[in-house]
């Protein structure tokens, strides 16, 4: 059996991977920089937690509703975000994050600084789920989300997003409905972040506003760019590496955040596409390997 410590880290990493994946839809696929993604993570977590503790909804209903509410808020906030572009958008999303955190913190309805407690792991077959079972549940959900992402990447939606990302004006001139596809990216990304938030709340059993602050948004964005922005597997690799980093660097606790900052800085300075981005050392090596392997196959 795997230890409780290991399974805890695994669950947190899958939740982060899901969160990084959702941000990748907005920032990587559709090219809209968001510095406030933790806000939607928080909205999902609070929705699910309050439905569960206040309204008495079971986990299986509160989790999808967390995604729906986060998606709706994402659409509502995505519409004003359409009025601003590039750097203005980055700062606006950052502002949204600060305001959402302030709302959680200062409105007593949301539990204030004390947060919300008493959220439990889901029940099934008349008993509470064990941690490994919960891990597998999240993993399965994440797997379906990745399949969906693959389907969309090959569809008109994926092409439309790519065209907006590369050149918004040209895309508009070619007849791509820029507004519709941007809002779609915001809705989808926010909804998946909300879903991850719901899973997070039920796992931690206790949430507070600080869990969803601007720092958290930066952590998620770091995972995306570290692994390779816009690639399918990059954000997941980023979530795994940056998720494990705090655990393996426990012996050098004092320098942990310093290493994190320097790693981020060095990565962007020397490998700006991220680990799996096109032109990075790792992806070039992989490509060379696959060519070697491919030519062997031909000669056989």
């Amino acid at each position: 059996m795997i230890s409780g410590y290991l399974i805890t880290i695994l669950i947190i990493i899958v939740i982060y991977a899901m969160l990084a994946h959702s941000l990748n839809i907005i920032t990587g696929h559709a090219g809209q920089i968001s510095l406030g993604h933790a806000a939607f993570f928080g909205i999902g977590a609070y929705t699910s937690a309050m439905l569960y503790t206040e309204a008495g909804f079971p986990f299986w209903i509160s989790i999808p509703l967390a995604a729906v509410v986060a998606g709706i808020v994402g659409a509502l906030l995505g519409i004003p975000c359409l009025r601003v572009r590039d750097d203005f958008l980055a700062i606006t999303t950052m502002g949204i994050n600060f305001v959402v955190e302030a709302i959680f913190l200062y409105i007593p309805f949301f539990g204030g600084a004390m947060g919300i407690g008493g959220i439990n792991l889901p029940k099934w077959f008349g008993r509470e789920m064990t941690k490994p079972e919960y891990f597998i549940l999240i993993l399965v959900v994440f797997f379906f989300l990745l399949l969906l992402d693959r389907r969309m990447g090959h569809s008109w939606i994926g092409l439309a997003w790519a065209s907006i990302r590369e050149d918004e004006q040209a895309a508009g001139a070619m007849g791509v409905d820029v507004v519709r596809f941007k809002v779609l990216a915001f809705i989808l990304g926010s909804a998946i972040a909300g879903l991850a938030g719901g899973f997070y709340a039920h796992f931690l059993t206790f949430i507070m506003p600080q869990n969803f602050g601007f720092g958290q948004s930066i952590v998620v964005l770091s995972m995306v760019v570290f692994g390779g922005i816009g690639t399918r597997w990059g954000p997941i690799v980023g979530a795994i590496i940056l998720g494990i980093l705090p655990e393996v660097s426990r012996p050098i606790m004092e320098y942990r955040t310093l290493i994190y900052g320097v790693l981020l800085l060095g990565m962007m300075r020397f490998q700006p596409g991220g680990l799996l981005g096109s032109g990075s050392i790792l992806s070039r090596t992989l490509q060379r390997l696959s060519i070697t392997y491919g030519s062997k196959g031909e000669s056989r």
Partner: protein
Amino acid sequence: MLWQQLANGIAIGSVYALISLGLTMVYGILRILHVAHAGIYALGAYVGLLSFRLVGNFWLSLVVGMAGAAVAGYVVERFLYTPLLHLPRIAPLIVSIGLFTAMEEAFRIVAGPHTLAYNARVGLGDLSIGGFHLTETQILILFVTFAVLIFLWAFLTKTRTGLAMRACAQDPETTSSFGVNVSRIIAINFLIGSAMAGAAGVLIGVYDNQVWPTMGSIPAYKALAIVVLGGLGNIPGTVLASIVVGLAETFFIGVLAIPFPRDAVAFVAMILVLMFKPYGLLGKA
């Protein structure tokens, strides 16, 4: 009471202006969101404090703090930003965030996690007229900000280098084709902007009588909100936005006692203004 709050608001707004001006100047030329600017601000405070402890003269420590910040800004520009200019905007932004995180940690490791007192006396004395009271450090802040603004205005409008800098902000390529050394202009831009951040760091250190590792955290993001509120890259807009935010914070929290976090006021103001003017208060499309 009202006049008192007005004075407090303007004093805070002046410090915001000192920090934000460097940020908006950097954005005006390089189009980079320079989050680590607040790290430079904290560095200025630390360097100033160190020199104050060694020599004991406030004015000297202000100059040394500004110089230290300017050098740090120059190094960041040369070795981190310039090589990344051809990449999508997100790359320098992430570098800047990483650098800022690393700087805060470096301050904590080198100078310790505690707040350090910056107990400088200038010898101006407080000013009291009736119920209206200005502390010595408030007078100092207003004086230094005013002097810096005059210098900046004179530099940008009366010198050839200032003219070249304004031209660079419009179009670096065309400016370069007229024989202007653009990379030198960018360096000067960073030196001046960072020196202003260093001055702000020293002033806040003296105003609060403390210097601490994460003193840049809140200014880092608040200054970005202010810069956007004023219209990214717009210098008069930035000064206006700084004063507006300083006053709004003082009035909403201090006078009306609304239970709202002080540091979110700038963001609420920014979002509201952007809804009606997507390029900020004085920005142009």
